[in-house]
């Protein structure tokens, strides 16, 4: 019995040949940077400077430079941390889980999504490091290093320690995966390089790749292994991040639903950020033929799915708060909705629950301008989700005598803007020096690589399972 799936869109349009692919994708790397690139890069570097300055203020003067206080001990710092880590999740999901599920549409977006993961995790890591009162020793002491202090050891009960392992594992595996996938492409650029420096650099990083069958065989195997290693990370990293809250006693944090809810939220926000980046990149780098409307459509469906999951989680939380009968829980959730930070809560609800539902409309799923706008909305919404969870739970907990309000200082805002600067600086450099699309994989999904000689532009591909 055979099932014939509906006709699918082409994954690469424009009748590209393998040669076109190489030329198109290498073009941004080999030409001179455009004015637009310089503009974006300059702004990003300025923001990066803000990051350095504000982190220096924090480290040399004290955490008092932030707006946190005796009751609200975490605010923008951990909000930003969770937000950035969440953003990273899309890359891992695309490169690992979609690889295992043989979703070929991932091939033209996985490279940049993985790059985004790396940069987002770098940005995320800044916050747990610098939120430490004694940043000069904290990062070392939080590691289980052998030492000369007798039985001095880390606390394996603490979710913060789990974070240390989770984030460092996540970063190293993601980096490895990303780099490994790039080796064939780097070799291609090496072969096309004209200046000695480029030749040297790309030769160095291509690690002697020669495109032999043996190379390819090992490449495929290692990719699969790394995909297997990364797959649990998609679920585990944000699960552990969520445990920073779930294992506490604070109403609004002490919630068993957090692990799946955080993972769904992470993928939601990650796809939001991927869309933000790719909608621009496909335009600026003229890659519309590779990152097609169909790709955007697929990602919008992921947004729709995960957004609905997140919405369900919000509603479940509310129900459980009421159903538990615990007055502190009930208050915490009522306070989110109607307390002094109601605006943050309703921003979150609007952006994360209501707005993704618009993607039920196919026309809107296929409109890049609308998608870009929505991706920003999703990013804002997910930032507010973390803010709501962290700040509105802390600012009014058990004893009303300690209830406070929190507002950020310029230093905190500067650090957040600074991490955006770091992220985009890295991304601009990435787009300038590395292929933003996996050339070798994309070549495998060119229409004519599947015995379909007709190069008519909109010829649908028929896949038989």
């Amino acid at each position, binding site marked *: 019995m055979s099932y014939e799936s509906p006709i699918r869109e082409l994954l690469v349009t424009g009748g590209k040949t393998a040669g076109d692919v190489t030329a198109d994708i290498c073009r941004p790397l080999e030409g001179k940077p455009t004015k637009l690139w310089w503009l974006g890069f300059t702004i990003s570097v300025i923001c990066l400077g803000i990051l350095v300055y504000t982190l220096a203020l924090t480290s040399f*003067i*004290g*955490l*008092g430079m932030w*707006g*946190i*206080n*005796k*009751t609200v*001990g*975490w605010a923008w710092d951990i909000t930003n941390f969770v937000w950035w880590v969440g953003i990273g999740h899309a890359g891992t999901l695309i490169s690992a889980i979609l690889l295992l599920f043989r979703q070929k549409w991932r091939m033209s977006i996985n490279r940049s999504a993985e790059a985004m993961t790396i940069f987002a995790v770098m940005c995320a890591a800044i916050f*747990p490091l610098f*939120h*430490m*009162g*004694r*940043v000069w*020793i*904290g990062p070392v*002491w*939080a590691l289980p290093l052998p030492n000369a202090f007798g039985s*001095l*050891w*880390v*606390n394996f*009960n*603490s*979710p*913060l*320690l789990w974070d*240390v392992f989770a984030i460092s594992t996540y970063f190293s595996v993601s980096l490895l995966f990303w780099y490994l996938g790039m080796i064939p492409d780097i070799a291609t650029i090496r072969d096309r390089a004209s200046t000695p420096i480029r030749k040297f650099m790309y030769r160095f990083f291509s690690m002697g790749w020669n495109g032999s069958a043996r190379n390819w065989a090992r490449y495929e195997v290692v990719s699969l292994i790394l995909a297997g290693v990364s797959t649990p990370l998609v679920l585990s990293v944000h699960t552990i991040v969520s445990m*920073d809250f779930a*294992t*506490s*006693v*604070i109403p609004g944090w002490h919630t068993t639903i957090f692990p799946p809810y955080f993972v769904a939220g992470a993928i939601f926000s990650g796809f939001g950020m991927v869309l933000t980046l790719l909608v621009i990149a496909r335009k600026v780098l003229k890659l519309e033929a590779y990152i097609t409307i169909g790709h955007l459509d697929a990602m919008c469906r992921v947004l729709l799915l995960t957004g609905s999951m997140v919405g369900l989680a919000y509603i479940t939380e509310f129900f459980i708060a009421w159903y538990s009968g615990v*007055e*502190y829980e009930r*208050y915490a959730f009522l306070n989110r909705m109607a307390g002094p930070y109601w605006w943050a809560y309703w921003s979150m609800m609007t952006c994360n629950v209501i707005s993704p539902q618009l993607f039920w409309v196919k026309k809107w799923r296929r409109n890049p301008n609308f998608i870009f706008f929505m991706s920003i909305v999703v990013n804002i919404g997910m930032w507010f989700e973390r803010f709501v969870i962290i700040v509105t739970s*802390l600012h*009014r*907990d*058990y*004893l*009303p*005598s*300690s*209830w*406070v*309000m929190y507002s950020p200082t310029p230093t905190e805002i500067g650090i957040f803007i600074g991490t955006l600067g770091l992220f985009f600086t890295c991304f601009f450099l990435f787009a300038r020096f590395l292929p933003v699309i996996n050339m070798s994989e994309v070549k495998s999904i060119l229409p004519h690589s599947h015995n379909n000689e007709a190069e008519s532009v909109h010829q649908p591909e028929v896949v038989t399972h």
Partner: protein
Amino acid sequence: MENKTQYWKGIEELNREPEFVQLSKNEFAEGLPLDEVLNESDLNLSSNRRDFLKFFGFSVSAVALAACNKAPVKNVIPYVVQPEEVVPGVPNYYASTFKGTPVVVKTREGRPIKLEGNTKSSITGGGLDAAGQASVVTLYDSKRLPLPLKKGERSNWALVDKEITAALQSAESSGKGIRIVSGPVMGPVTQSIINDFKAAYPSARQVVYQGISYDGIYQSNEMCFGKAVIPTYRFANAEVVVSFGADFLGTWLNTLQYTRDYTSKRVPTKENPVMSRHIQFEGNMSLTGANADYRFPLRPSQEGQALMSLYNALAKQMGLTQLATPTKLEVAGNGIEESAKVLAGAKGKSLVVSGSNDPYIQSLVNQINLMLDNYGKTIDLDNYYMLRGGDVSFSDFVKEAGSLGAVIFYNCNPVFDTPEGAALKASLENVKLKVSTGYYQDETASICDFVAPDVHFLESWNLTEISRGKYSFTQPTIAPVFETRQAETSFAIWSNNAAIANNEFNYYEYIRNWAKNNIYDGVLGFDAWWNQSLHDGVFDKPELTPQVPSNNVLASDLVAKINTKVGNNDLILYTKVGMGDGSDGNNPWLHELPDPVSKITWDNYLALSLHDANELGIEQGDLVSVSNGKTTLDKVPVLIQPGQARGSFGIALGYGRSMGVKDVIGLDAFPFVGKMNGTSSYYVSDVTIAKVDGHYELAQTQTHHSIEGRDIVREATLAEFAKDSKVENHDELGRMRNEEGKLYNLWREFDYKGHKWGLAIDMNACTGCSACVVACSLENNVPVVGREEVRRRREMHWMRIDRYYAFRQEGEYLTREKDYDKMEDHQYVKAVHMPMMCQHCENAPCETVCPVLATTHSTEGLNQMTYNRCIGTKYCANNCPYKVRRFNWFRYNDNDDFNYYMNNDLGKMVINPDVTVRTRGVMEKCSMCVQRIQSGKLNAKLEGRKIKDGEIKTACQQTCPAGAIVFGDMNDPESQISKEFMNDRAYKVLEEIDVKPSVRYMTKIRNVEEKKSVSTAQH
């Protein structure tokens, strides 16, 4: 046995070849391959010398450069001859006296670092208030004058003495008169010295005034009974207390004694469920009002009417003649009738007090107390409170000041703390000699020709008579920090008598002689008596049996004299707990101490009712101008104060000191103090309040004021408690318990083999006076962080007192923000004070979340902080349900942004060497005074015994005048804390989250008739 066997190494040796013989003389027979080694290509011997010089040169210059780094010089000065009693690391304690409160001074290596109440005192029983606790910081205040001043310039004692004596003599001979101006002199020996001075200069007179005057009480007692004294009020004998604006637990007269006596009647037990009833009529929401069972808002201008009505209501009940009053008296709802009813039922066991300074109002109060048979029982005119008056009244002095020859201000600051300050300043310009003995260049000292700074009380000898026959000794605990001299010595020197001319004056001997002649009881030998009294710090003569005085005044005669005109807007001038009249206005701890009711630090403000604020269109954070026509204060921040009587506005005195302080803090309201019936009046009627431009945020340590209906504070009425001693305190977690009665939980049980420390806090005893807050902070080197940081909600107090309001509406109390926010009137309010510190949980949420194990559980049940290990993730603070953890946001010592006492070497002398000064970036919190526990354990170990219950006291417990805090070992079934924990009122805050706190609170019982509050309406 000789071994003749020969071994040979080779054939060459056996043959003894000449070549071999020759070579064997060398150390290495075969030679070393030196050439081979040295000629290897990579060892370029030809430039060896140059390389050597290069390396040598580099090393020398590197070492020289490294040595150029100037290491800071820190001087450690060892004892050359160790004083006999000083053992490094072991504190010495000396008895002393702070402003009429017996204290014990803890010194370390010769530095006083902490004051504690003197438990031997029959007046305080060991309590000490916030101002007393903070006063040790003043000793090391760098703003104190280090030398005598002449015309504002630094001078020396010899010159100053010579010139002052000469000027005094010329003033004397000119016949213009000499005046010594001072606050009340509680020291009989000081008074004797002043008397000597007056004998030396016959034209000298003494002017005694009080910044905060109680003249009305003197005068009324003189008028009524011919005894110009302030009586001792015995709250311990009073079953009904009715107070008209007297803040006797916070700021009114001898608060420590009153607090102790009052609370002794306020703690009902299962066996004896009785307590006194306290009714308060007042305008401001005072600490005393916050503790009252019933509190009625009453403006001070209504007080005369209210007292007359009370008199009439009582007279009616007792069948006596009522007063013919000019107006119909309808004040404070039915409060007056209710009060009369309970007062009449407690004749001889009640007490009516008034905070008014009007002698006629006080006389009427006397008449009421007479009617109630309270004299000799709850009011003692014979063992009176010792605030002495002088020869000349202050007003007369101000009038004649311009014509005087010399004025000496003895430790007082009348230019600041009297309403006539400006007039005084002007008229003093013509006076030839003006001397101040204060230890600051304050408002008065700065207009003086000479400042002869007195020593701090911790540097001096003295003797104080607190109440009649109750003496307290002051002994120096440190050599004067500056080149200051005790004022008594100065007076003696300026008296210019023969002994002094020979430099023989010795104030210590003078006190000894005085004591020998005046108070020595002759039971022991004098030296033995003296040593014993100094050791104990206190000496009590037998009390007189209080008599019922004969009355000279008819209540009906008072009616005409008492103000019955009710003003429109009454401005109430009150003093704050701690700050008082502002004389210690440079003490950072008094500013950082949150007001016990408003929880505001670092400012005074205009307190007004919500109703008035709405009428005037004022919101929290606005600024207003306050004017009574003559005086105007501009840009006064406002506080909308629940409980404030409508039409009354409160502003604290003692703020706005402009000289002798680091910063001007608050606004000076003394110019508003007026006169009524000859005495200072601390309210002004018909003031105008107008909103002005600007916004000001008061630094408040608590900004949410209700418990939101949560089961945090448990309270019940006395009637309910008498019926069921476990009222509000029944176990409602039954289903969550296993067979052993323990709550099911995930965690391993701890096994406490030795001690298990805990605290019990009785909310019925706690008045909220906040002495513990300062005591804890000084004991544990908690930094002062200043107004801006308090605004950012980062005060560092390890111990705080939570104050919650419940708002009454239609007989019910509202505790939820959403409910009371709709109310238009917050006049009717009740308050509860809840001391809160680290609860030392067994299942501490902070311990599990620390990634580096910086906070851990001790084998004795303490939750310990290891500062050195802390990396400052703040997760522990987030996860603390009680929010008691404090983070070091900045470095608070040696940091110019925090220019308080920890920022200079002198100020740092007050730091407790037993407690680490925390660095930036670490978390800290209450340690249950672990250093005291350790020292108690060590002492017991050295003496080879077990720790006695009550031997170790935490700093908060020690200072508590109400005895509301009990610390001890829960593993000792005989200990007081074990008994307290068995109390039916004992409960754990947030028991349901099962963190198992080691601190228990006692249900608050109120002696009220009304239905219990809705505070725990969830059940």
